[in-house]
C-alpha cells in the first residue's frame, strides 16, 4: 500500500489528510488519488498526471512530479503546493 498525504489546498479540497492506494509508480498513485478524492480531479491530478503548481515528495524527501517515478510498498507520497513563498 502507498500512503498519500495531502497538505494545503489539496487537503482542503479533499477534506481529508491522507488516503491509501495501490500503486507502483507516481502516475498510478495520481490516478488512484483522483478516484479516491474526486474533488482533486482535475485541479490537482488528472489522468495520471500531477498538475503544475503542485509537487510531491516521496517519503518527504526529494521533490518531483514525474509520473514514472517508481514506488515501493510502504512509500509515503506527500502532495504539496509548489509555491513556497512566505
Amino acid at each position, binding site marked *: 500500500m502507498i500512503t498519500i*498525504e495531502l*497538505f*494545503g*489546498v489539496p*487537503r*482542503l479540497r479533499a477534506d481529508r489528510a491522507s488516503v491509501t492506494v495501490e500503486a507502483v509508480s507516481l502516475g498510478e498513485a495520481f490516478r488512484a488519488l483522483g478516484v479516491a478524492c474526486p474533488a482533486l480531479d482535475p*485541479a490537482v491530478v488528472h489522468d495520471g498526471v500531477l*498538475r*503544475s*503548481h503542485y*509537487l510531491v*515528495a516521496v*517519503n*518527504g*524527501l*526529494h*521533490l*518531483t*512530479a*514525474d509520473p514514472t517515478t517508481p514506488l515501493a510498498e510502504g512509500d509515503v507520497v*506527500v502532495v*504539496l*503546493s*509548489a*509555491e*513556497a*513563498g*512566505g
Partner: protein
Amino acid sequence: MNGGWLGRYLRVDVGLGSGEIVELERSTLRAVLGGAGLAALLLLRETPARFDALGPDAALIFAFGPLGGTPLTTSAKLAVVAKSPLTGRIGDALTSSDFALAGKRTGFDAIVVRGQAAAPSVVLIDGDRVTMASAADLWGSGAAIADVEAALRARHPGFEFAVIGEAGERLVRYAGVVNGGRHAGRGGLGAVLGSKQIKAVGVRGKQRVIIADPGRAVALAKDLARRSLGPATEKYRELGTVANLATFNRLAALPTRNFQASTFEGAATISGEELKLTRERGRGSCANCTIGCEHFYEVTPGAAPVKAEYESVFALGPLCGIADPAVVLAAARACDELGLDTISTGGTIAFAMECAERGLFPEGPLEEATRGLRFGDGARLLALIDDIAHRRGALGDLLANGSRSAAETLGPPAPDLAPHVKGLEIPGYDPRALQTMALGFAVGTRGADHNRSGAYEADFSGKVDRLAAGPEAAEHAIASEDRAAVMDSLILCKFLRGALTDFFGECAELLLAVTGEDLGADGLRAAAARIVLLKKLFNVREGWTPAEDTLPARLFDTPLPSGAAKGTVLSRERLGAMIAAYNVGRGWERDGGLPREALIAAGVEALLEPRG
C-alpha cells in the same frame, strides 16, 4: 516623462523642516527602474561612506515604482530603504497599499528623508510642500500603531501615514515602519525614523499617473488580474502563507527551537489548515490587489482578529518551541502594535531561550532576568516582546539589538548559536533542508532574507537536490535574485510570479505599456543585475567583507536531528563552493569583491554621479 515615472524625487531635511526637489534623468530611471532599484542608487548618492545608520547623515528612502498607480494588480507598493542599524548593510523592505498610492500622487518617484528633528515630529508632504507638525503627544504615548495612524488621519485629513511604534521610538534595531497594517518590517527601518525623531510621515497629493499606452495597459491589467486568480496563487488565497508551516514540517524544513531541529511536534496545532478550520475570521488584501492573501485569525473570543503570516507564526511558534495558537497569535499582535519585526523578534528570543537553557548568561542582571527561561514558555515570550520594545531592563535592552549583538556580548559559544546572516535573523526556511536557499541566505545583501532571494523556489522545483546542493545552485540563486530585483523595482507583488510564464518578457511588456520604454527582456535582465550590484556596492562601501557571506556555525556543525531529512548536513566546503560559483556567475571576484570592470560594464559608475 512619457508615463509611469515622474522624473524627480523629494529630498526632505527634517532638521530644517524643508524639502528640495531633485530632477531624475530618464536614463537613470531606465537603468534602475524605480522602487528598490532607485532607492539603492539614491542611498549611495545621498549618504557619505561609513555613516552612522542612526545618525543625522542617514537617509530613509520611500521609493515608488513606475507601475504604481496604474490598474495593474498588486502594483500599489513601495520600497522603504536605508542602512540597516541591525546589519550595517543595506536594508530594503517592501510594503504596500494606500500609502504607496498617496505617496506617488505627491508627484515624486522617491522621497528621501534626512537629518534629525529637534523634537518628536510628523513630516507632512502635500505635493511639493513639506511641513512639520509636533508629535509630542504621540511620542511615548504607548498607543498602538493603528491608533496612532487613526489619530493622525483625523488630525490631517486626506493624508496617508507611515508610522513607527514604541519600538522605533526606542531605536530597537529591528523596529519596522508601518502603514495601514502593512509592515516594512525587516532590518530596523523604524529605528532609523526613530533616530530622526520622526513618528510618522504623511503623504497627500493630486498628481495623476500618466500611462504611455492606456489601452494596452488596461488590457494587460485585465489579463494579469485573471491569471492572478489561477492555481499559482490558490495557496495564498485559500490558506495564506501560513500554509507553509505543516508542509515545511513534513519536509523537515521548519526551523524549530532556535534551529536545533527542523521539525516541531506541535506543528499541527498552529498549521494553516488548522487555523483556517478553527480560528479564521476573515480575509483581506492590499489596495489594488486581486489575490487577497491576508487571513485574519481569532486570538481570543470577542477580540478583533489578527492578521498572521507564515513567518510570524514560525518565528513566534516553533522557533520558540511554542504550539499554543492563542499565544503565537497574541505575540504576532503585540509585535504589530509595537512595531517589531516578527522574524527578528522570534529569532532573538529563541536565541535567548537556548542561551538560558545552556546557562550562557553571565551572573548578574542578565542571569537573573533569564532564570527559568525555557523553550515553550508562552508567558515569557509575551513579556519579552514588551521588554524588548521598551528596552526594559538589562535583558530587554540587550535583545533589542538583535541576536548577533547579544551573542557578541555573551561571548563564545553564543555567536555560533545566533540565528542570523549579516545580523539579520533567518526566516523560516531551514538552510540544511533547502540548500539552494542556504546560498541565497549567505550571499543576500540584506542578510538572511527570503524576499530578496527566493532561491527556495529551486529547492521546491524538483530540479535540484534540496538536501545536497552544489555549485549549480548559483544559477538558480542568481535568477531568483534578479526576478526579485525586477519585482521590487517595478513594483509588483512576488505572489504574482507563478502566474507569469515568461517573466522578463512579460514584465518588459508591462513597463513598455506604462512608461513607453522598451527595455525588452534582456534590458530588464541587465537592470536586475545592475540593481543587485548597486546593493552589493553599498555594502562594500559600508565595510562588507567576504567572511560575512556565510551561515551560523551551528548549521554546519549539526546534522538535522529528526524528520524526513534526518542526518542531512550542509558542509562549509560545499556552501563555499556554491558561494564562489555565485560570485563568478555574477561577474564578480571569486570572493565576492567587485572588480571595477563590472561596475563600468553595468554603467554603475556613471549613475553614481549626482546630477540633481
